[in-house]
């Protein structure tokens, strides 16, 4: 009985994936991709990955969707030219064969998986009490595999530097994207005034809940970044100039605190990112709180793109 519902959901997922690939124009493909992201968060719930579902709902459906929509809007005119470059039948058949081959290989791998599946859950369950947090995912992200999370934070900052470095020389240090305008008494401006306070409460709640329940800094930061972007899209605030020193300090603050905590561990616990006995939870919370502003700034600025006008209004 229940399998039928799962079947409906995954078949729709497949249909949407095909849609995004074969859709007539880029807008339809992106709209399909947003729907795909929303459906994917249902699949994550089905796989008991509530934390993952939260991240997917926030990033897959929301941020990536808005980013791609913005790109489609600025790419009009290039689509017709691209259509003339459509590969011939031969290439398409070859691509189809290759895709089927890859799928078949993956299917064989999935069917050959050992039973029962290998797992690290018992180890996590055994060591989790020592960290003082109740959510095993937070435990993995900030205690057992904290190095991964540190590197990820650094990767995000590097990606942002990469995006900024695409700015034309004359706009270096300027503001990204174009200035949005909207009627200050209109519906959009009203919407962008009411929603962010609610979003901020929900975002901070998710950060706070992340210690013991699904949630955490990534999901929280995504919501906060989306709220900031909303204010910008409604023309209520301008994007910050990327040359702003305060902004740059905020961007590197999170990773720096993370590294500092790691070095402190070297001194107190004997290894990098070690937490001294009984101090794990406060340190985890400190890292989460310090990373939050960094993540908000990085995610929002990644969405905004490269500087495209000078810092003056």
């Amino acid at each position, binding site marked *: 009985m*229940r399998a039928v519902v799962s079947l409906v959901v995954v078949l729709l997922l*497949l249909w949407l*994936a095909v849609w*995004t*690939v*074969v859709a007539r124009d880029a807008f339809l*493909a*992106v709209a399909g*991709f947003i729907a795909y992201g929303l459906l*994917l968060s249902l*699949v994550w719930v*089905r*796989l*008991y*990955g509530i*934390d*993952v579902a939260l*991240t997917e709902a926030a990033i*897959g459906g929301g941020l*990536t969707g808005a*980013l*791609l929509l913005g*790109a*489609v809007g*600025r*790419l009009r005119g*290039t*689509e017709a030219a*691209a259509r003339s470059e459509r*590969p011939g039948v031969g*290439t398409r058949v070859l691509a189809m064969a*290759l895709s089927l081959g*890859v799928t078949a290989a*993956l299917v064989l791998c*999935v069917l050959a*998986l050992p039973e*029962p*599946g290998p*797992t*690290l*859950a018992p180890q*996590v*369950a055994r060591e989790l009490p020592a960290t003082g947090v109740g959510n*095993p995912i937070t*435990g*993995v992200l900030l205690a*057992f*595999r904290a190095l991964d*999370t540190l590197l*990820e934070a650094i*990767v995000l900052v590097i990606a*942002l530097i*990469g*995006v900024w470095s*695409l700015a034309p020389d004359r706009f270096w240090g300027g503001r990204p994207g174009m200035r949005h305008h909207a009627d200050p008494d209109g519906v959009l401006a009203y919407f962008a005034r009411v929603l962010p306070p609610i979003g901020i409460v929900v975002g901070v709640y998710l950060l706070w809940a992340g210690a013991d329940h699904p949630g955490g800094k*990534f999901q929280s930061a995504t919501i906060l970044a989306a709220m900031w972007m909303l204010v910008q899209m409604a023309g209520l605030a301008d994007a910050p100039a990327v040359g702003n020193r305060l902004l740059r300090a905020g961007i590197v603050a999170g990773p720096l605190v993370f590294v500092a905590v790691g070095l402190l561990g070297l001194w107190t616990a004997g290894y990098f990112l070690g937490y001294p006995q009984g101090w794990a939870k406060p340190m985890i919370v400190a890292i989460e709180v310090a990373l939050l502003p960094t993540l908000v700034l990085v*995610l929002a600025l*990644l969405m905004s*793109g*490269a500087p495209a006008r000078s810092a003056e209004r």
Partner: protein
Amino acid sequence: MTAETLIALVACALVGIGLYGLIVQPHPLRKLVAFNVMGSGVFVIFGALARRGAAAGMPADPVPQALLITAIVVAFAATAMTVALLLRLIESTGSASLAAEPPAADGEAR
């Protein structure tokens, strides 16, 4: 067949569909969307593996799930980076073509 096996098999197909779009669609933005579909297929396979690792009272293995969160965020960063590259490409060449020789019709290529 368990639900997670079903989902894993569908995810294999998602990877294939994404790969096909990545090769066949000429417009870079369409390639990017297809690539994201492909990536999410990989994520879902990984998530199904996590679900198979349910043990010790946990409904799924938390280690792969934590890595998935990291992966989704990094995938967003990569997508944003690609979009920025693409917009820059159009700004400097006036065309979104990835062909080695842009079509002659695009006279305004600088």
